[in-house]
């Protein structure tokens, strides 16, 4: 921990001082927020009663010394609203990087992406990358650090402390031919500092081999094979149990007008563990998609996804899923209507096994057009849900229509908008039909001469349930941004945001209201 902070800070100071030609930029946003909560169920609100502040400061710089480029950044946050952050003061980022395009050293927040299965998470530590000028030479990246979710985890108290996951990794990549490049990756992680007796701890190693092959222009084949070797202790006092797993992924992408075709196969065993990479264990998956531009106006899409679990027969039964979908989008469907556009999609979800069976159908269509000065978008959706046996059988209809326009007046631009929506759900098990209606009106305004932009919206949402509690929610929001010319050098923007929400139910003990006002200033230099 001390070493990481020391090296990050040293490199930051070093990069600040090595040259007088460096550039420094910063941004700061300070806001004060006042929330008033009212009504018998005001505890349901996600806001905090009273006045609170939030401060964000970021500084970053870069420069050049001899053949070395460097940059650095750090950010600080302060707030007294526990719903924003449990800590009053916190460090949001700390990073420095120095490179001569062959050697690159990064400290602080280090985010190297090796491969999908090996490493794709950031660490707080350091990394070194060697990229020889000769692109066919071996490129090496090595790193070491701790995968804490935030900097406070190093020095903070229990509320920000987590298991300490220390990681060390290396990636070696080589371009073998014009068509093939391959890489080897190794990541070792060790968990310590259990915070709760129920915290599970891992010691895990992941080895992976990956390659990319471009046999011809537009066709790329990439693949990865990974092995994991892990020990796991589920809680304090329990001994470590070992497991080994493997994962394989092959993907072929063909991309050339008029088509783009993607085929992917993946197999991750139940015991495959990737703590800093990404994998869904116990999964065999096949996916294909085809986008075909039939003409300049018409595009068609097909895709198919299939997956299953229980690969080692370790479960009592297997669940299989498949999800095909198809769609078509047509620009200028009416030749005389320049802005007319329509699309239609059908999607199907099927899942069965382990004593359950579900089949859901989704139909969606939308139409866009411009009538005079008014833009219109209309969406219609119909979903059929069926989960056997007797778990769910319902159909849902959604419809919404919106109108927007822009009017340039002498000194300002106005952007009025109207949205109307209906949602209808029919439950065929309980025979209940629920309806929801919503509307909203909005008006945007820009006054370029005095650098003001503003937006006001209000609307209502009404839920009518055949059984249960009906409710109405009214909302109104106003936001205004002002960029004074006198503070052009600082690029400062003052902003005010105000919101009012009223939630009322047929059971009045559930009612509550929220009034929130936020004022602040955002500056950049």
């Amino acid at each position: 921990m001390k070493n990481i902070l020391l090296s990050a800070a040293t490199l930051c100071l070093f990069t600040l001082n090595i040259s007088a030609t460096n550039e420094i930029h910063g941004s700061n946003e300070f806001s004060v927020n006042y929330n008033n909560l009212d009504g018998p169920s005001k505890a349901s609100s996600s806001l905090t009663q009273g006045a609170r502040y939030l401060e964000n400061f970021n500084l970053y710089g870069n420069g050049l010394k001899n053949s070395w480029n460097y940059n650095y950044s750090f950010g600080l946050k302060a707030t007294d609203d526990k719903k924003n952050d449990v800590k009053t003061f916190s460090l949001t980022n700390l990073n420095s990087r120095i490179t001569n395009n062959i050697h690159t050293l990064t400290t602080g927040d280090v985010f190297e992406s090796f491969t999908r299965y090996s490493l794709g998470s950031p660490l707080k530590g350091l990394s070194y990358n060697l990229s020889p000028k000769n692109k066919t030479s071996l490129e090496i990246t090595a790193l070491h650090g701790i995968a804490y979710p935030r900097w406070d985890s190093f020095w903070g108290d229990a509320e920000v402390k987590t298991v300490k996951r220390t990681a060390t990794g290396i990636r070696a990549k080589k371009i073998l031919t014009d068509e093939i490049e391959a890489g080897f990756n190794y990541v070792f992680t060790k968990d310590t500092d259990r915070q709760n007796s129920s915290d599970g701890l891992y010691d895990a190693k992941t080895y992976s081999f990956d390659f990319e092959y471009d046999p011809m222009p537009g066709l790329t084949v990439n693949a990865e094979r990974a092995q994991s070797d892990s020990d796991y202790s589920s809680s304090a006092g329990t001994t470590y149990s070992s497991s080994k797993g493997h994962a394989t992924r092959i993907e072929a992408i063909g991309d050339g007008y008029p088509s783009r075709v993607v085929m992917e196969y993946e197999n991750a065993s139940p015991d495959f563990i990737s703590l800093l990479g990404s994998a869904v264990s116990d999964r065999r998956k096949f996916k294909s998609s085809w986008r075909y531009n039939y003409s300049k106006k018409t595009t068609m899409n097909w895709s198919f996804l299939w997956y299953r679990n229980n690969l080692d027969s370790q479960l009592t039964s297997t669940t299989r899923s498949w999800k095909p979908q198809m769609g078509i989008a047509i620009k200028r469907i009416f030749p005389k209507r320049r802005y007319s556009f329509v699309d239609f999609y059908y999607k199907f979800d099927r899942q069965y096994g382990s004593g359950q069976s579900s089949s859901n159908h989704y139909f969606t269509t939308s139409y866009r057009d411009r009538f005079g000065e008014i833009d219109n978008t209309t969406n219609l959706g119909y979903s059929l849900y069926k989960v056997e046996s007797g778990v769910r059988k319902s159909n849902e209809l959604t419809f919404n229509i919106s109108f927007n326009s822009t009017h340039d007046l002498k000194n300002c631009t106005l952007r009025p908008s109207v949205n109307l929506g209906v949602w209808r759900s029919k439950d065929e098990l309980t025979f209940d039909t629920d309806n929801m209606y919503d509307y909203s009106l909005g008006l945007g305004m820009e006054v370029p001469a005095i650098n003001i932009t503003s937006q006001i919206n209000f609307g209502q949402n009404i839920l009518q349930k055949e059984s249960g509690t009906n409710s109405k929610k009214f909302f109104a929001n106003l936001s205004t941004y002002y960029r004074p010319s006198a503070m052009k050098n600082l690029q400062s923007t003052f902003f005010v945001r105000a919101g009012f929400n009223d939630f009322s139910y047929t059971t009045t003990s559930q009612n509550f209201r929220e009034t929130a006002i936020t004022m602040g200033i955002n500056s950049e230099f």
Partner: protein
Amino acid sequence: MKKLLLIAITLMFVSSGLNAKWWIFGKSKDPVNIKYLYINNISSDEAGSKIKVFKKSLQNQMLVLKGKVKSGKGEIGSIRITLNNKETWTDAKFAKDGSFNYSFKPEIGKTYIMFLEAMDTSGKTNNVDETRKEIIVSDEDPLKEVKKALDEMFLAYKTEKIKKFMAYVSNDFLGDSVMLERAVRDDFNALSNIRMRYVINNISAGSKGRIFVSIKYNRMVFVNKTGASSTDSGNTEMVFENKEGKLQLYSMKRPLIFGLSDADNVATGTVIGETEELIITNTGEVSTGGTISNSKTLTGSKTNDGNDLLSYNFSDDATYSESGNAPGDVTKIINGDIAFYTFHIISSTPNNTKIKYFPGKNINTLTSAEVTNLSGYTTTITNPSSTTGNTYGVYSGGEYHAIEIVSFSAPFPPYTVTFKVKSF
């Protein structure tokens, strides 16, 4: 493994031997083609038709294009690049093997329309129109770009605009963009009046143009099925990648803020230390499940009867020591939902509890979909209930829970059992 290698090798040989781009249905291959092109170290293939380059990432304030072109038979004779939509062209320096390097000092905020033309010594060229890229150089820092992308995604999710939301999801989204699109659509059918806000905890820009962000979120939703509101907050992590001239979502961890209807498939991993989350079940209802408790230890006080039971009640977190007559005598459990007895874990008949053993799973890897599927649930599970690490699903009082045995002192009383609980 052998089969997979065989498939991969076969695919490589077969595809390299093809004379046509099979995926475009018979179009012939170009005589001159681009092997690769990197724009400021971003692969042009991966970035899409628009590329946003951050000023911060420029080398000596220069934007660098590196690539390689190859001719079918002859040598490369010239490589030209235009940055203003074919109005003017500039020659690029290239080596004999077709690799080239071109750099220029970009104007910040300007959009460059780039094409690349490579000609071999016989006068044949590549398909120039296919090389079109829009390059935008932004002076905004990645933090501001992440905030912009997050704000747009939050707004699209809150206003239930699926197309606007998916415009910020990468085709390469690790949890699969098809699954996320359907999960978000199901979220919109299940929820209304979504109110969410976030504050950034940690941000890190990394290789391949990807940016990691950790956020604290607060959320309130209305559940259409029940008409009730639900509130939660937590810390989650996401990764964005630079694609199509903007940042797009590349991966998300649990607890999720989008795609709650299919958390098992949409998320890749769980944030360290975060154990609580909101999910939408396959009936369209919200479950505030996923809280893993500290280990609970039950100790029996009755030691004189080998048929004593240790029972536990999920709703009030209470433990009881009760008298049973036999392992199968579940009617004797009066107070608890489940009971531990010698080599058995049994369910309470009065409370209509059901249990299921999940071999090979622990409390972290057991998914909500597995626990909430009632198939295979039973009333009594005999040996190996006493084995450390065994994990069970429990259905009681209309709610689902998972328990993992940490230790069990069976077979002889007084029993002591320690286990973890996760509620769904």
